[in-house]
């Protein structure tokens, strides 16, 4: 019995427990329900390999896939006053912030960085929907201003990936005034004749859509992304009728003339390189494997 107890049972247990797959190894596609192996999914930039559905991607993972060799340098964002209004609903705002920071392992809802894409120097900003719905408060405003200032300083284009439920209510009017504040940032780029490219990702709504996310020189959206000012539920409640299929989705906006392009995430990097290089009057990008980042390469037109 000892042999069974001490050896066989644990062996059997370990075999069975091994079959209990740790949760984080597999993800289920929100759309088609296919189980996707995590490495396969992240290699495909969180796009379902079966149905092409675009799942959320963190700014850090997006940058890792965007920049040459996954190398980028974060740009510091001036820290605004925390909890400027002393806001409390059912929870205190600082508690909501702490929970979001713990959940995402990020400081706030936007990450800004500089680096190269296809050996083209850029500044990039990406919004994090998993951080309090990507909501735009003073930090996000400061981040966009800092990104624009850095782009102007380095004479680089700014590529911004938007994702937000809108303004951050817990900062009240100070979230609303991020609309003009971020518009000033866009103007800085325009005055310096630097490209400002917006990639609208799922979802981009409210005050974010009604400010910097709609002011790009080129407006690209990821497939099926919800892009709107007022959300579909609000509209249905107001007009009391069902909305058409695909309403406020990227393809619908493209049809209505509100976007330049709808591009799958897996093709986005190449497209951004192509567009940015043309706008910056650089020679065409060289296709194929690139030398390691940091390698000297003269790409200015002759």
């Amino acid at each position, binding site marked *: 019995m000892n042999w069974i107890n001490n050896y066989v049972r644990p062996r059997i247990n370990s075999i069975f427990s091994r079959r209990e797959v740790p949760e984080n190894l597999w993800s289920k596609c929100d759309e088609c329900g296919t189980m996707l192996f995590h490495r396969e999914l992240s290699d495909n930039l969180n796009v379902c390999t079966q149905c092409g559905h675009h799942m959320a991607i963190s700014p850090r993972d997006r940058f890792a896939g965007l920049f040459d060799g996954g190398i980028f340098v974060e740009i510091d964002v001036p820290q605004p006053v925390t909890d*400027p209004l002393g806001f409390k609903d059912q929870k205190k705002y600082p508690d909501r912030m702490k929970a979001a920071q713990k959940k995402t392992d990020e400081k706030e809802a936007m990450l800004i960085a500089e680096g190269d894409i296809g050996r083209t120097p850029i500044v990039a900003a990406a919004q994090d929907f998993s951080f309090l719905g990507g909501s735009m408060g003073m930090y996000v405003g400061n981040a966009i201003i800092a990104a624009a200032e850095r782009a102007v300083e380095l004479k680089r284009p700014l590529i911004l990936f938007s994702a937000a439920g809108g303004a951050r*209510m817990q900062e009240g*009017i100070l979230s609303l005034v991020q609309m003009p504040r971020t518009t000033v940032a866009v103007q800085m780029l325009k005055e310096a004749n630097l490209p400002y490219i917006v990639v609208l990702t799922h979802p981009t709504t409210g005050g974010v859509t009604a*400010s910097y996310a*709609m002011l790009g020189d080129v407006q690209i959206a990821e497939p099926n992304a919800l892009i709107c*000012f007022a959300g579909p539920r609000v*509209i249905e409640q107001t*007009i009391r009728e069902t909305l058409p299929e695909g309403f406020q989705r990227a393809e619908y906006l493209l049809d209505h003339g*509100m976007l330049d392009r709808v591009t799958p995430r897996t093709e986005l990097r190449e497209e951004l390189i192509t567009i940015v290089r043309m706008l910056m009057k650089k020679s065409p990008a060289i296709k194929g494997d690139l030398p390691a980042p940091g390698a000297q390469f003269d790409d200015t037109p002759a």
Partner: protein
Amino acid sequence: MTHYLDFEKPLAEIEGKAEELRAMARQNEDMDIEDEAKALDRKAEQLLKELYQTLTPWRKCQIARHPERPHCQDYIDALFTEFTPLAGDRNFADDHAVLGGLARFNDTPVIVIGHEKGNDTKSRIERNFGMARPEGYRKAIRLMEMADKFGLPVVTLVDTPGAYPGKGAEERGQSEAIARCTEKCLQLGVPLVSVIIGEGGSGGAVAFATANRVAMLEHSVYSVISPEGCASILWKDAEKMREAAEALRLTAQDLNKLGVCDHVIAEPVGGAHRDRAATIEAVKNAISGMLADMANSKPKALIQDRRKKFLDMGSKGLAA
């Protein structure tokens, strides 16, 4: 017939009694009720003062939305001469929720733009309750460009529950229109002054109020979201609007502390609607003062001033 707000019920009773007494006296000449009626008047006046001295943020929202509150058209009629409405966005339609055109203010030609809510069922529907569609912002952009071209100051009067959440408005680019209007405000080489006369609702308001100077009437409000909307999202209960109004800090007084509003315009006791003429006069003085401040500013300086105002905004929070 005065429209009483829910918290004014006790006042309605007293004023109603005084009115009843006077009506009785009119029918019966022998009755001497004047002393009694006057006592009631004094009591009502006292109560009104008390009620309005300690208004909660939610009550201020109610006053800001008061149906008898002077609206954009009232200010235009009283404060501007030769008002010449200019219509249309040259793309799709004319938005009746937004009034705009050439006018003279103290004899100086200006462009005036504002949200109009309407005063009765018919005009409210026509004005879409002051909720602009993309065409409204695009009309405003067009008028601002005209102002810039001819060097005319721009005065905006803000009074909107927010941008209209409709199917067509979304299809025609509500967000883009608001973003471009805010952008246009920031590009103007002429003075831009804004008065929030009632409700400053979210993006619909900021698109007109990205100004060099922003004044607010004492009982007007300006917020990122309506208290009801905020309550339904954060409290999961739209009935918690009182708490939400409190938390959002949407009163003119709080916004003044936050540096979002430069100037609070005092209202008569009992709110703007109880003495429209006095309110309109106070707004006139505020606009005159703000425009005079910038009378000699050069276009570049005006643009820089506006930018800096917004870049610096909120850097200290309420603690400032």
